[in-house]
């Protein structure tokens, strides 16, 4: 039985592996491109750009100073290249997860049937040990950037889907009723009412998705994804404690920066809603 499945899957791989790879080509191009941009630009420019984004997101000078210091230290300790690889894979994964996750979350919110189908799949994605689904991905696509990317996306996708769905379902029913009473089409309702009001929740989802992607970096490095995960992996196999520690700390630093910036941004977009409305 097990053998039958394995054989079947192997055949499937042989038949479709290549076209699948072609299918994911744009993803690879995107990743390679973003990596190149980050690595080929002079480092002060990259730091200024990241600090600028952090400021735009959070409007906090403290955070900006933190970003500059963190990246200078990373560069000084020789982890610049790996950090840039990690940043680019996180960026690509997050963008892809948002592009898939938000529409899927919206579909789930609009239909109980879709919700009933998707929820268990998300549960499986979140509870299944990541190594298990690394196997078919690797079998299909081999070792390399793309399978790593896909593994990270699969792992990071559930929170954004869940929280988009939840956010839209929890929009004040009175406001939705008002939208109906004024003759909105369902697209107008989505655009003018449901998405804006669900935004804090959607944002929490984006934040969690980024965190999940970061935590997957080490595991993804096992199947050939470059970045901060690889030195950590090397450190584990060769027992280089300080190397592992430093790279680990770099991951933590990036995580904290992403987390704070996206949280501050999330708070800022809902600041005028403070105190709620009405009763």
């Amino acid at each position, binding site marked *: 039985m097990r053998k039958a499945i394995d054989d079947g899957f192997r055949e499937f791989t042989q038949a479709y592996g290549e076209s699948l790879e072609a299918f994911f080509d744009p993803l690879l191009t995107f990743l390679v491109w973003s990596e190149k941009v980050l690595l080929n630009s002079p480092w002060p420019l990259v730091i200024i750009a990241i600090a600028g984004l952090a400021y735009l997101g959070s409007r906090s000078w403290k955070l900006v100073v933190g970003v500059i210091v963190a990246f200078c230290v990373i560069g000084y300790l020789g982890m610049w290249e790996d950090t840039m690889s990690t940043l680019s894979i996180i960026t690509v994964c997050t963008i892809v997860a948002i592009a898939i996750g938000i529409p899927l979350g919206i579909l789930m919110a609009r239909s109980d049937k879709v919700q009933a189908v998707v929820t268990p799949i998300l549960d499986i994605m979140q509870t299944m040990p990541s190594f298990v689904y690394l196997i078919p991905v690797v079998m299909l696509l081999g070792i390399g950037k793309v399978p790593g990317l896909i593994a990270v996306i699969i792992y990071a996708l559930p929170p954004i889907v869940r929280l988009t769905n939840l956010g839209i379902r929890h929009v*004040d029913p*009175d*406001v939705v*009723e*008002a939208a*109906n*009473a*004024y*003759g*909105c*089409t369902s697209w*107008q309702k989505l655009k*003018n*009412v449901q998405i*804006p*009001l669900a*935004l804090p929740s959607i944002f929490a989802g984006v934040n969690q998705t980024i965190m999940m992607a970061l935590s997957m970096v080490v595991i993804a490095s096992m199947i050939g994804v470059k970045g901060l995960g690889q030195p950590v992996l090397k450190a584990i196999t060769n027992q280089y404690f300080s190397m592992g520690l430093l790279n680990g700390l770099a991951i933590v630093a990036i995580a904290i920066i992403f987390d704070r910036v996206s949280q501050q941004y999330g708070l800022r977009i*809902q600041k*005028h*809603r*403070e*105190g*709620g*409305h*009405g*009763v």
Partner: protein
Amino acid sequence: MSDKDVKIRIEGLSKIFGANPKSVIPQVQQGISKEDLLKKHKHVLGLDNINMDLHDHSIEVIMGLSGSGKSTLIRHINRLIDPTIGNIIIDGENVCDMNDKQLRDFRQAKTAMVFQKFALLPHRTVIDNVRFGLEMQGKDGAFIKEKAHYWLERVGLKGFEKHYPAQLSGGMQQRVGLARALACDADILMMDEAFSALDPLIRSDMQDILLELQVELKKTIVFITHDLDEALKIGDRIAILNNGRLVQQGPAQDILMNPADDYVERFVADVNRTRVLLAKSIMSAQVPSEINHTDTVVVGQDDTVQEVLHQMLTEDALQVVVADEDGQHVGSIDTDTLAEAVSHQVEEEKTTT
């Protein structure tokens, strides 16, 4: 002011909530009570065979205790709720026959709604909230801008354009809600307990604003409230619902003078009649042939009993003659009738305190 053209006709409207509403229609048509329907058939009777006309250019109040079906009824007018059986005919068109597109167009063009909890868009500024209905109607930018500013000014919120709803008090938020509704320029204005969340003084202000605007706009306003004083103040007519059934509909005077049943009687018991009942409602049509000017006072037919009493006492009169707007004598009120109108009040105050 109100000519008697029917704007909204509700015909045989029933609404049953539950798993399979159609299956219990026969029982409902045989007059099963709300309790029995719930107990024996696990369905909730929301509305039971409502037949009523709502007149053009007037404020039609719908009253009833909590759970009597007021919100359910008003939401049938723009079909936010679909009826189980029955028809809603507005300007000769059956709302129940409309498809989605027609229904949206109908809602945009003919109805506007004000909500108890305001239901403003918290992420939009005040002016952008007022613009909302117009945007949905697909009007062009300059038109929307002009209308939105005009109506915001009319409700007294000029200068608050850039505020967010959460920065305003409840009363101000509901003015925004009112401006949003009025900006749509729809014939029918639906207000579901629109002022119930406001404190008494603000509420009274809002009632005044509404009445003032209505003199000029002459819309069909369907106004829900469970506050009889509010109903008497603003309603041209009042409809009273009990457990999903319409028990009485008519001008306030009729309801006060001739309550249809115990439920209505209890409803109107607390009201201060002397401030609501009008001379014309309690007068007899006999005009005395001789008028002794020293002990007779002439009052207007639309004066309240309280005003009549006041004039009697200040002028030391013993007899009251009622005149219409042109000064024609149309009736008289004897002191016994007056005493009864007042004593009704006194008795009730005794029993309630």
